[in-house]
């Protein structure tokens, strides 16, 4: 294995042997006339150096676990090489494809890592100007859905498998009949942010005039309607947190990783070089506890239905105290005063002053789950402050729940001849969708047979996006392309192909497949006219980069329409009064936010996301009801107690999790659980959609909910059961004001006396620096690590036992009183200690120290005494208590990273600093006869971290970023006094409070 990893120059080879046809010829002396290869220039010298091709072979051999390849066992079994190897693929070497992951109205430009033509890992697209290689956690995890064995593997008609032609034929007949009869047809899809897809639907509508299209997002909140009302047309507002100095979030969870660009920009503002800043300030007014609230410099827990009132009170205060005029036509009625809203006076003053002071550099954001009025307040404030921190992009109209209700009633009334559902699951996610069954013809295009598919006759299985073509609007005036990274695994087609087939069937002219259609449209509309580059090349380059700029540039904030804002102001006042009444009546407000992992339920079957700890509650596998500390105390509820939620008609029983920092009178229940279909998703958690308010103005928030303990208790599959630091010096966190003196106090870590001479690291000393000031705890790293390192999923029971396998966890600690805690996050992974306690105690030396400073774990030598894990003060070692992996069959096992050993039962494992990536980088450098470049080797977690809080590199190289950060005056090591000498330095968390914070 070593030979192949570090190829030595081959020994001089024999001179090229002469070919001979017969023994005579062989024995004859070579005729002088014939040029003798031996004497030909160069031919008599051994091939020296190492060509890239050879290197690729070597990397191939080595990274595909050459130890296995070298072993006599591996020589058994068959080898199936490429018959004609495609130029870009070298067995054992990864390829990267730029593509796009879409989730509702959002599109993420991603880079898909493939091995031998199948995707195994997803990261952000580094060519994207805003994302810079970052992406959403769910994008990373969605590669698993590609290999989900529950996918529908072929079209079905009335429950029996049929051919595509038959299924499409049936659908087409219905449409033709409808066209003839002039009856309308309903097309229900998710948000169509893809321009080509939109164009296609439009063409279909011209071919089928009766086609009614609704773009509907199950978990969609109020933001869309609010913007449409406030600005007269649908807009997507893109926050530019890189420009914002003061950010006020009205229940907006901007830091949950769904918007990596925003998170990246925000985090960049949280890492001042020194005590003098600069550093932005984050105010959060919210009911639920979110990652954004956890990161806030000032956080005001408040019932969401009151937040609108706060917004308008702010507008009044800005007008009265700082003379910031309201936009034309807006006049605000007197509303509840901050004191009445339960906001502390000094904090309020500071907030108002802060916003006014920041002026154009201020930014007010409102959460999608907040009532519509709150959004109007936010728009008003932004307009009033004339902020330069928001960009507006024209958006496609989305259907509100009212639109959908209307359509469903029409269906029930038998007005529609047929309904075609594409990538939506109303039967699960829309409480009043039962009438779907009334449509005579029901066709469904989707990935997995879900609740809706169960109600349809024609089931048309769809490509996973990793198998499909497409284009998307990447936000901020960019187009991103989506290209397949693997051929269709099953007998599926991408939805667009179905529409094209229908288009052709309805007499329209359309190409055979969407790929052609896409290129044609791009040639027409995107390819700049008269460009010297031929379109073919242009498209290839676009695919290569994955992102192209488009003429449409985002504008600033459009002019505000007065009427809806004024109306909202009244609504806000009324809502606040209602909230008072409800509070007296002991009724709760239920926040219905999409689940962190499963979103609106579409990822319910993704085991990675199910076992991904909720970044706030740390609960896996389900959606318990979050209850505020005060209410829990009042009702005598504890974690795991079963409680019944009821609100006219809707009723569920779910376990309770007590959430510090949550506003009293507020409950939180994640959407997307309680699915009735899907091998993994089925029966996990409870379905919260029935609680969604019919009024789109209040989507995402249900008022007047009753909570009663229903007896009984369950054990929550929670990965962190203890939330206080017990006064231990684990995470450093101080305010920007205190930075100066902290920096003076700061001492570089000194090494305790030792019996033994210090280790020496001849070549490299790998290390990591984690900036807690940047880290918001979004847990993207956890998923990236899981995908990169073949980390098994163990299931809820095992998590209850405390046997989750994540190599990386985000430790979240609360400080201060539980009603209004301060939160610190600390990514915890193997510290790769120089003096690692785990290494001493292994009787078989299965874990030991590498010359480049890695604490390495040799799985095949491990007998599983678990002593190392006991002796690890950081408890970052994971043990395979049971057989979690061996039963995995294809397609599930196809997602495994071939460069990483899959661990069987009885073996200890832990973070390796992605040693496979380190070796890859080292080999590349060696082959190119150069030292390893700083930042060339990036572990999965660092690559995924949207906040760029994780930096990896060589501590021996003083010029490297990591070495500089390790020497930072914010740096400290965890449990330093144990003398373990960790290789990871944590940079202290910084807060930037406007006034001296209450302890």
């Amino acid at each position, binding site marked *: 294995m070593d030979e192949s990893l570090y190829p030595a120059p081959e020994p001089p080879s024999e001179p090229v042997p002469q070919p001979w046809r017969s023994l005579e010829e062989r024995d004859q002396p070579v005729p002088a006339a014939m040029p003798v290869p031996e004497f030909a220039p160069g031919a008599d010298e051994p091939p020296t150096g190492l060509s890239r091709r050879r290197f690729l072979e070597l990397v191939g051999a080595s990274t595909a676990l050459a130890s296995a390849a070298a072993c006599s066992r591996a020589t058994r079994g068959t080898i199936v090489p490429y018959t004609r190897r495609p130029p870009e693929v070298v067995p054992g070497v990864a390829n990267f494809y730029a593509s796009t992951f879409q989730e509702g109205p959002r599109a993420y430009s991603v880079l898909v890592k493939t091995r031998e033509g199948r995707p195994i890992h997803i990261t952000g697209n580094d060519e994207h100007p805003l994302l810079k290689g970052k992406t959403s956690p769910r994008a990373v995890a969605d590669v698993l859905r590609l290999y989900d064995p529950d996918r529908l593997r072929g079209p079905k008609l009335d429950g029996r498998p049929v051919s595509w032609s038959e299924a499409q034929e049936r659908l087409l007949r219905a449409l033709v009949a409808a066209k003839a009869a002039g009856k309308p047809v309903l097309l229900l899809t998710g948000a169509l942010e893809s321009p080509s897809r939109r164009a296609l639907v439009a063409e279909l509508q011209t071919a089928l005039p009766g086609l009614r299209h609704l773009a509907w997002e199950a978990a969609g909140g109020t933001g869309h309607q609010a913007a449409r009302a406030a600005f007269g047309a649908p807009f997507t507002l893109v926050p530019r947190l890189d420009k914002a100095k003061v950010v006020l979030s009205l229940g907006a969870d901007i830091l949950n990783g769904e918007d990596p660009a925003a998170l990246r920009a925000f985090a960049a503002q949280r890492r001042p070089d020194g005590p003098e800043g600069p550093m932005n300030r984050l105010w959060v007014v919210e009911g639920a506890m979110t990652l954004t609230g956890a990161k806030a410099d000032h956080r005001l827990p408040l019932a969401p239905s009151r937040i609108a009132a706060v917004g308008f009170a702010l507008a009044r205060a800005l007008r009265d105290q700082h003379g910031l005029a309201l936009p034309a036509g807006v006049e605000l009625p007197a509303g509840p005063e901050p004191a009445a809203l339960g906001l502390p006076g000094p904090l309020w003053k500071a907030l108002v002053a802060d916003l006014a002071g920041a002026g154009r550099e201020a930014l007010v954001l409102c959460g999608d789950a907040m009532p519509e009025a709150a959004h109007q307040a936010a728009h008003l404030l932004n307009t009033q402050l004339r902020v330069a921190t928001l960009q507006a992009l024209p958006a496609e109209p989305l259907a509100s729940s009212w639109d959908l209700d209307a359509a469903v009633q029409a269906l029930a009334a038998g007005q529609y001849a047929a309904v075609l559902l594409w990538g939506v699951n109303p039967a699960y996610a829309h409480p009043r969708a039962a009438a779907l069954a009334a449509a005579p013809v029901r066709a469904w295009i989707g990935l997995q047979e879900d609740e809706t598919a169960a109600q349809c006759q024609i089931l048309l299985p769809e490509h996973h996006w990793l198998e499909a073509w497409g284009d998307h609007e990447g936000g901020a005036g960019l187009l991103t392309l989506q290209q397949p990274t693997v051929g269709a695994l099953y007998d599926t087609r991408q939805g667009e192909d179905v529409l094209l087939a229908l288009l052709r069937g309805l007499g329209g002219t359309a190409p055979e497949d969407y790929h052609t259609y896409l290129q044609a449209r791009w040639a027409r509309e995107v390819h700049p006219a008269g460009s010297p580059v031929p379109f073919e090349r242009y498209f290839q380059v676009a695919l290569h980069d994955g992102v192209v700029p488009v003429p449409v540039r985002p504008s600033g904030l459009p002019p505000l329409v007065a009427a809806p804002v004024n109306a909202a102001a009244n609504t806000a006042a009324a809502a606040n009064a209602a909230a008072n009444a409800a509070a007296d009546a002991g009724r709760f407000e239920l926040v219905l936010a999409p689940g962190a992992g499963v979103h609106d339920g579409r990822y319910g079957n993704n085991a990675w996301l199910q076992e991904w700890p909720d970044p706030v509650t740390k609960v896996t596998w389900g959606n318990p009801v979050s209850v505020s500390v005060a209410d829990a105390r009042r009702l005598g509820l504890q974690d795991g107690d079963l409680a019944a939620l009821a609100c006219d008609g809707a009723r569920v029983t779910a376990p309770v999790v007590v959430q510090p920092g949550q506003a009293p009178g507020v409950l939180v229940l994640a959407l997307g659980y309680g699915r009735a279909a899907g091998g993994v998703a089925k029966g996990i958690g409870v379905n919260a959609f029935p609680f969604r308010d019919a009024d789109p103005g209040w989507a995402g928030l249900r008022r007047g909910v009753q909570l009663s303990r229903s007896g009984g208790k369950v054990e929550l599959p929670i990965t962190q059961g203890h939330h206080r630091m017990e006064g231990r010096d684990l995470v450093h966190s101080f305010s920007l004001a205190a930075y100066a003196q902290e920096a003076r106090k700061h001492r570089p870590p000194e090494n305790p006396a030792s019996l033994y001479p210090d280790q020496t690291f001849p070549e490299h000393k790998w290390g990591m620096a984690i900036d807690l000031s940047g880290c918001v705890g979004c847990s993207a790293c956890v998923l990236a690590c899981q995908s990169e390192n073949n980390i098994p999923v163990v299931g809820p029971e095992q998590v209850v036992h*405390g046997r989750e396998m994540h190599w990386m966890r985000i430790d979240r600690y609360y400080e201060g009183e539980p009603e209004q805690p301060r939160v610190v996050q600390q990514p915890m992974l193997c510290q790769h200690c120089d003096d690692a306690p785990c290494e001493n105690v292994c*009787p078989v030396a299965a874990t030991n120290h590498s010359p480049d400073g890695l604490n390495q774990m040799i799985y095949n030598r491990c007998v599983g005494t678990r002593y190392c*894990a*006991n002796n690890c*003060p950081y*408890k970052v070692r994971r043990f395979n208590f049971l057989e979690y992996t061996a039963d995995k069959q294809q397609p599930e096992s196809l997602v495994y990273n071939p460069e990483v050993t899959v661990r069987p039962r*009885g073996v200890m494992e832990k973070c390796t600093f992605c040693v496979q990536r380190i070796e890859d980088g080292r080999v590349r450098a060696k082959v190119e006869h150069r030292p390893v470049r700083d930042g060339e080797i990036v572990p999965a977690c660092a690559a995924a971290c949207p906040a760029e809080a994780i930096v990896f590199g060589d501590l021996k190289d003083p010029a490297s970023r990591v070495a500089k950060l390790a020497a930072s005056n914010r740096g400290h090591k965890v449990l330093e006094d144990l003398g373990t000498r960790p290789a990871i330095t944590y940079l202290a968390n910084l807060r930037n409070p406007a006034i001296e914070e209450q302890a």
Partner: protein
Amino acid sequence: MNSEAASPSVPLPDNLRAPALTVGRVTPGSLDDQILAFPERMPPRKWYIAVACTATVMTMGLAMVGYTLFTGIGAWGNNSPVFWAFDIINFVFWVGIGHAGTLISAILFIFRKRWRNAIARFAEAMTIFAVMCAGLFPLIHVGRPWLAFWLAPYPNQRGLWTNFRSPLLWDVFAVSTYFSVSAMFWYLGLLPDLASLRDRTESRIRKPIYTLLSLGWRGSASHWQHFEKAYLLLAGLATGLVLSVHSVVSFDFATSVVPGWHMTIFPPYFVVGAIFAGFAMVVMVLIVVRESMDLKNLITDFHLEVMNKVILGMSCLMGYSYAVEAFTAWYSQNPILQHTFLNYISGTYGWAGWLTMGCNVLVPQLLWIRHCRRSYPWMILVALAVTVGMWFERFCIIVISLHQDYLPSAWHNYRPTLVDYGVLLGSFGIFFTLVLLFARVLPVIATTELKAILPGAQPSHGAGHGAVSGGHHD
């Protein structure tokens, strides 16, 4: 010692006389007829019933072990951070039990405590069986038991060796050494008795077996000379060993960084605990043996009382150790260590801490009372309490220390499964089954050693040493 023997003319007052080690008239011959007869007779029904019970428990336990080997350690309650639980608790517990035997046969031999002779044989046997039970756990507790042999540093074609810095490897050496030395010690002691069996038995089956086992021992003076020398040397070495073994076991904990494990007091603390638990177990078994096999004349109340005194002394030392732990926690001013100690008495498993101290420190104080030292119910009560208490002490050390260590984020509670309980019970089944078998096939009392201290056993005006009290003929 008993210098009064030097001049029988001056009789000593009774309270100064060493207590008689036997009751009634015991001659070498009668001793043989009493002890060596057991292997020759068929056991009574109650013995069969007892074996049936223990064997059932043993089988059940082994079934549980099999289940564990089949499914993996996940069958137990172990989790992260409590990676060790019942498995290592039982290991330490049984190794501890296994300390009384060698102590009695070695240390007491060196101190010339002649009362040891009557009980040494049984205690040594129990040592061996206990160490066998203990040895079971390191083997089955590893994640890949079929590779457990990798813990032995044997030359292999992969050129791999073990890590000699790991306390676990020290354990391997210590426990295996301890086992083999105890076994040899035991066997040497058995040798003359086997010769006696050989020469008294008529059975055609047993005779050749005993002949082979006794290696042709013929009791010649020169042999006895070397034999005694060897026995003395073995005793001396075994003394060092018995002290070292549990110290090494304690290194598993003491050399780690886990708060509550990283304690300098651990080695003596563990050794004391081991002797403590071992004596308790010996007392319990001896009572049964003494009653059921009618050995009251050889294992007298005096024997039991002396052992109870030892137990009492050890109990006080345990109390001292606990106090030192508390003091260390307080004096270290280390919040993490203090947290761990408070956990022992007030945490999720605080009850275990109190149970430990109650059983190990409070209950044995009963033995200050002479009546309790001599009455079965009381001493059985104490012995049971000590056994339970010592098991839970290891529970505290291992589980309580682990379940809340350095990073609060990683804290997690522990709950054993039925399999855990099954394996624990099973180990008791194994132990008592072996004890019962031993009681019937081999001399339960070292007749030779006893003969040597019977009245009149040594020449009265021979060379001064070793003469016994009342050395007059009759």
